[in-house]
């Protein structure tokens, strides 16, 4: 075995650090899905009538899709059929009725988040990040709410938004990802339990990074959260999302929907570090991460930027997209996706150029190790009206080991003669020369591989907020441990 091989092997094998289970009393409804479950979820959350109706429409549509074609089959992933009747669709930590402050949150819950490295109290004081933590299905606590409220920013759990701002929810819910969009989005629309809601009023620049942490705790439960971010004219927000789950043998389903709406001159920056449990070395267990994320640049000169670091999940199926509707609007997608052991990732983006002078940039870095399979799947579509639209796409793949796979499937559809679209992709491995160069300068093989991999991802990491960039870089090292081989 070559040195490269050995080094990569040594790097890839470390255990999942976030695989603990929190023993906490949960309000769990029985597994299974039918109209009554949808009604039950809605009533547990005391939702207004329009929400229930929307959920039911989604559910009926989902049933239709199920009998017609079922789950999407075009992605380059394989998994045994999912029994949607064995999933628990609602699981909430049991707690006293309403929480006045953080102190009232179950201390066990707070400990969980402390283990995850997001001590809410600490962050409150030190980093100035406002956190909305979602535990299984229910949002636990939101920090910094008052401070944000002074600026007119609404940052709360989705359930609270439904109670307190039903008009906003009704106006924007499903406006970017309609409940008919795809199989998993329909399912989410019917049963989503909570998530985050964020509204930035006109002209306001959100003074801190907003953050949500998702965690799946209950066995056999699915997590179906929904995030909606609306940035009014001339506003700006940077939003962070992180995810973990306990180690379990069986697969758990995570089908989330994220909708972003950017009005004129508004900017939304959305960053994700996804580290759901990826399954063990033989590929047992792990999260199925089937997520629909889409932003709409509704207004002129608006901008939506997605940055994602995907190191977890047994299967990732996710295409954060931007609909560039307003003239001069900008869409960006920066992604690092890493697969190891038996992980599968089919991820990429869609940039739909509708308005004139719209621009988009796609930088995707895929790293495959072990028996992992990584697919970049992307669409760049330029409609006839999108004069002078521009896109640049760069997809690079790095292969560590000879049992993994890297795939690139870009779709490019151009119907305007003034548009300019460029796509480039490359695939390579870490060469012996690069390793040798580092080693002769006294850098160990492990460190060299880690350094080269980090260099490979640099273009993406530099778009992450500071704390996230450090975390992502560490995560990459951990996820790769023992894979070198």
């Amino acid at each position, binding site marked *: 075995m070559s040195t490269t091989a050995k080094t990569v092997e040594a790097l890839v094998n470390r255990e999942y650090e976030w695989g603990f289970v929190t023993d906490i009393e949960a309000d769990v409804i029985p597994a299974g899905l039918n109209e009554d479950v949808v009604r039950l979820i809605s009533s547990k959350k005391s939702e207004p009538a329009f929400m229930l109706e929307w959920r039911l429409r989604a559910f009926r549509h989902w049933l239709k899709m199920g009998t017609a074609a079922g789950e999407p089959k075009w992605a380059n992933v394989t998994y045994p059929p999912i029994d949607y009747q064995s999933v628990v669709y609602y699981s909430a930590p049991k707690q006293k009725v309403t929480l006045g402050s953080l102190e009232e949150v179950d201390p066990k819950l707070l400990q969980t988040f402390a283990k995850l490295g997001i001590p809410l109290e600490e962050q409150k004081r030190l980093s100035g990040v406002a956190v909305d933590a979602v535990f299984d299905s229910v949002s636990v606590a939101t920090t910094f709410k008052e401070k944000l409220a002074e600026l007119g920013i609404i940052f709360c759990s989705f359930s609270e938004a439904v109670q307190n701002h039903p008009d906003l929810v009704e106006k924007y819910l499903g406006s970017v990802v309609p409940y008919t969009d795809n199989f998993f989005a329909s399912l989410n629309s019917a049963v989503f339990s909570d998530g985050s809601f964020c509204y930035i009023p006109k002209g306001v620049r959100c003074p801190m990074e907003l953050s949500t942490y998702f965690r799946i705790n209950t066995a056999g439960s699915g997590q179906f959260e929904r995030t909606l971010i609306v940035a009014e004219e001339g506003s700006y927000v940077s939003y962070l999302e992180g995810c973990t789950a306990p180690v379990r043998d069986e697969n758990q389903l995570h089908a989330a929907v994220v909708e972003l709406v950017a009005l004129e001159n508004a900017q939304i920056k959305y960053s994700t570090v996804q580290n759901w449990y990826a399954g063990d070395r033989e590929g047992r267990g792990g999260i199925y991460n089937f997520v629909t994320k889409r932003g709409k640049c509704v207004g002129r000169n608006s901008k939506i930027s997605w940055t994602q670091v995907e190191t977890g999940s047994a299967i990732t199926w996710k295409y954060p997209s931007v609909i560039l509707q307003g003239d001069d609007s900008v869409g960006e997608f920066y992604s690092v996706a890493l697969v190891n052991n038996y992980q599968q990732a089919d991820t990429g983006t869609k940039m739909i150029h509708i308005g004139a002078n719209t621009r988009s940039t796609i930088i995707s870095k895929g790293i495959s190790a072990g028996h992992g399979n990584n697919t970049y799947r992307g669409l760049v579509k330029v409609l006839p009206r999108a004069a002078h639209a521009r896109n640049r796409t760069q997809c690079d793949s790095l292969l560590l080991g000879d049992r993994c796979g890297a795939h690139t499937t870009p*779709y490019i559809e151009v119907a305007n003669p003034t548009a300019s679209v460029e796509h480039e992709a490359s695939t390579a491995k870490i060469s012996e020369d690069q390793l040798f160069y580092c080693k002769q300068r006294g850098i160990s093989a492990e460190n060299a591989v880690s350094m080269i991999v980090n260099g490979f991802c640099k273009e993406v990491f530099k778009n992450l907020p500071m704390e996230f960039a450090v975390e992502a870089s560490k995560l990459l090292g951990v996820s790769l441990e023992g894979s070198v081989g």
Partner: protein
Amino acid sequence: MTPVAPPVSRYLAAFEALEGTGAAASPAWLHRIRHDAITRFAEQGFPTVRLEDWKYTNVAPIVATAFQLADTVPAGLPAQAIERFVVRDPVAHRLVFVNGHYSATLSSAAPLPGGVRVASLAEALSTDTALLDRHLGRHAASEGTGHGFTALSTAFVHDGAFVHVPAGVRVTTPIHLLFVATAPAGPVLAQPRNLLVADRGGEATVVESYVGLADDTYLTNAVTEVVLGEGAILQHYKIEDESERAFHVGTTAVVQGRDSTFTSGSIAVGGALARNNLGVLLAAPGASCALTGLYVLHGRQHVDNHTFIDHAAPRCTSRQLYKGVLDGRARAVFNGRVTVRRDAQHTDAHQTNKNLLLSEGAEVDTKPQLEILADDVKCTHGAAVGQLGEDAVFYLRSRGLGEEAARTLLTYGFMSEVINRITVEPIRAQLDSLLMARLREARAAKETR
């Protein structure tokens, strides 16, 4: 059994009729191949846009047209009719097919080295049975080439070209296969079927030209299978210049042996709707292929190029360069798939697709695909869609060229990268003047506007 759609059943009935005459029953090996193929066709039917490989090309107009199977050569086609397609200087060994059937009177032989076989498939079916049994229908059946149209071709296989270059023989005279279509009396279906075999160290140049005599509606469903032995070298050109009311579905399946070299030049300028499938299986170490393509479209033409390169063995090389120029409301599709199988180490694969959009209403859909399962590889692909560089136009104008003249010259330059790679001089010259005429016509249209 699922109910069969009428367009499919039309061909099933035609097959039954052929069976009834007893002509299809012999020889037995061929009958079996045909029979399997019609069963496959009944299952597959015509591809629909629901299939990933046909997402951008709707063959509904083909399905909707009631084509008559062209079963004989139309009588009395004079030699002058094909004069403008004939290749001279150097003279080529020419086989002419009218609506898929060999025409001895229009064909013309040139001296070939001993042992080289260039014949009609109809003849070879009785003289070269061992070779045909080994290869016919065996290669154009895999992923990328094994669609309903191929099954339809195999079911009715009867004529086409057969070329066999024995071991160590080098054929320097180009072999020109001219496929002429004529359908004055209503839509016909021509299904030429070709088999090109070069044994160990054999070398040849084969040009396939598909042309329409008049502005007729017809469908050419052509299938070519290419088998290259160890170290064999084949230069293969395909010129698609069908009538602009015609349909063309062309499938070329190549299997390459150790250290063999396959060079392909695929030019598409004709047809209302044309689809080219080119599948290359690099089956043994050290094989290499270089594919170039050019599509120059106007009006409402639709051309779809699908390439599929299967790196199944280590140390193989593939190069692809496809370029397109689209005017009017034309639409082009490029789908280039490169697969590197597990253990196909030291693969070197490179692919580029570039498109020039000249007018509003033109559309390009391109999808370069990489599927890589080995780690010690060098694979890249790139795709670009754009327009002529304004700086370049300005440069030429500053030197006294008019706006349209400058654009025409730059467009010509864009195309010549592919045209200049054609080594058969008369073919290159023919194409060159055809494309120049296209550009002049487009320029005249723009200047009078």
